[in-house]
């Protein structure tokens, strides 16, 4: 039993960590702008594509990875300046539509650049090698992801709680207008949020695509939506909430992927039911349940966690 479940659990934790890194971007932006940044999943995908082209150019790994992260952060910054800043005083729906437009544009740009072909993601030596954990074979990235995620989250929480810009972020998310009156430069705070969010999505993309062989223009959509669900699940605006939500969703999703095998091996069912079809749908079912039962999410009420 344990031997059957464990591999799924392991990959669930790994995927959960990757979702967490994306979810932080959603939750921070929502906390400040009250905007579902639909383009965030595509920023994540673009980071994957940049990595593909960077490593094809033959640069060493210690150059490409930092470069990818910086470029991704830059893309987040540019998107905010071009597509969201002009709509600062517009109704929320306009900004959301603009986000959808950006998502559409990014996907089409990548389609143009790649010609709509699956691009093979480069193997990153340290994290791509196979390791054996308690009898289950997996890639090293599975072990690296949760650790790296936690380290990055701790750094981020320190940044938010201890630094000046973090204090500004907390103020802006509490009250947009008052903090403006108090002399906080709203635009630079928002830009900083987007830069941090995109940077983390970049890290997430390096980890995520190591597990998947290829990148295509639509590969950001699903992880993006799931990470958003994770953010809502944990209570939007709360960073620890997003991380915990992401781990829960990652684990549940992978357990469902393997549910047929698990149930079959434990003798509950005699023929496979094809339940793995529901691994994506489950995430959304969970979202709807949480929205109805506790719309603020797991940690939504703790206003001090808001960023």
């Amino acid at each position, binding site marked *: 039993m344990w031997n059957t479940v464990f591999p799924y659990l392991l990959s669930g934790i790994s995927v959960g960590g990757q979702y967490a890194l994306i979810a932080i971007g959603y939750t921070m932006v929502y906390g400040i702008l009250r905007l579902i940044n639909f383009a965030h999943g595509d920023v994540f995908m673009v980071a994957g594509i940049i990595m593909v082209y960077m490593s094809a150019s033959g640069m060493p790994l210690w150059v490409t990875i930092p470069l990818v992260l910086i470029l991704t952060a830059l893309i987040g910054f540019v998107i905010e300046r071009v597509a969201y800043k002009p709509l600062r005083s517009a109704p929320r*729906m306009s900004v959301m*539509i603009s986000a*959808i*437009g950006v998502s559409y544009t990014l996907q089409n740009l990548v*389609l143009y650049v790649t010609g709509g072909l699956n691009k093979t993601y480069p193997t990153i030596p340290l994290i791509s090698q196979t390791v054996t954990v308690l009898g289950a074979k997996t890639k090293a990235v599975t072990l690296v992801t949760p650790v790296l995620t936690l380290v990055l989250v701790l750094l981020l929480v320190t940044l938010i709680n201890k630094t000046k810009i973090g204090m500004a972020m907390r103020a802006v998310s509490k009250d947009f207008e008052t903090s403006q009156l108090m002399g906080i430069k709203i635009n630079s705070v928002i830009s900083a949020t987007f830069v941090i969010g995109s940077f983390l999505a970049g890290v997430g993309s390096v980890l995520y695509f190591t597990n998947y062989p290829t990148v295509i223009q639509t590969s950001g*959509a699903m992880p993006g939506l799931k990470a958003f669900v994770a953010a809502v699940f944990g209570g939007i605006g709360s960073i620890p909430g997003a991380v915990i939500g992401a781990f829960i969703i990652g684990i549940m999703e992978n357990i469902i992927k393997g549910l047929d095998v698990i149930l079959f091996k434990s003798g509950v069912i005699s023929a496979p039911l094809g339940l793995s079809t529901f691994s*994506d749908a489950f995430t959304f079912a969970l979202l*709807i349940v949480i929205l109805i039962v506790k719309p603020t999410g797991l940690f939504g009420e703790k206003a001090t966690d808001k960023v």
Partner: protein
Amino acid sequence: MTNPKIKKKDRALTVSWIVVAAVYAAVFAAEQVISPNSMLFTVLKKGATYALVAVSMNLLNGFTGIFSLGQAGFMLLGAYTYAIFTIPLEHRSSVYQYFNGGVVQFTLPWFLAMILAGLVAAFFAWLIGLPVLRLKSDYLAIATLGFAEIIRAILQWNQLGPVTNGSNMLRLFPNFNSFNILKADGSVAVYLSTTVPFLIAGVCIGLIVLLLHSGYGRAFKSIRDDEVAAEAMGVNLAHHKQLAFCISSFFAGVGGAMLAMYQTTVQAKSFTTAMTYEILLMVVIGGVGSVTGSVISSFLFVACSEWWLRFLDNEQFIGDFQVPLLRNGFRLVVFSIIIMVVVLFFRRGIMGTRELPDVIRALPGAVRSLPEKMRARRERRSASRKEAGR
């Protein structure tokens, strides 16, 4: 004495009817004359389909103020319902080859199947609406989007294969070409494959317009403008939101059935959120809160993406000079940039909240009757006299 205001409105309405009738006549005539393989008809058929879906989305997002992103899910339900009930019996064994011909062993006429498609979509909308419509703006958007994804997964489930054919394609059901009237030898006597979709979409959009002009429509608009005020005026929020949601989904379902007819095959995996986004962009480009705008922008959107911008996808030469950047996919890049420009700088879209009669009324002198002109002149004169007398 006749009220000049009403007369003016009547005239604009009459002209609008004439414009619409002329469009239909032109479509019918073009279909008889131009080769049926022309790109024009692809655009017209797909455009009519999307026009209906966009208007149904506008009913919800633009007129009732419910930001729903579930349109693709309801279209999917409609498309599947239509396909499942219209595949001819003799083809069932080949379509449902992995499921022994499926469990549905009867067919409905296309017309009934299409209405059923709408009803199924509306029924699911009712179910989904019960919990979801209590949510606010963006939470509602993400929840409806989630439901669309759930529906997509359920329809692909292998256990439902005898009904839905699992994740396999549904095909061989009557499509738009079945509307052509054939001669005895099998050649086409009267082409109707574009006119009939136009009629279906036209009737449905007409019904939506009638609804918008009724008391219900006014209640919807009042919810959009101010929920609290609407409730204070006696509008039952839950009831009206649910109603708008179901009606919109009904027409999305019919639109889905039309899409199935247009595509000639249906597969659940193509009804992604990207499809909903596309429809939303059509609504925005046309003008949120304008039926005419949604219709026009749907045709423009389809024409641009399928036809007019096609040349951008191929290498072009001006003399000996090869235009740079042109290759597969560039069309979509240009197209997305146009969309972003509209979204950022022309937020009212093509029509804003105006409709066809409003546009006609605004034309300089085009439909003003003579007495009206005289009246306007008289008013102006008396106004200036008052000014002078002071």
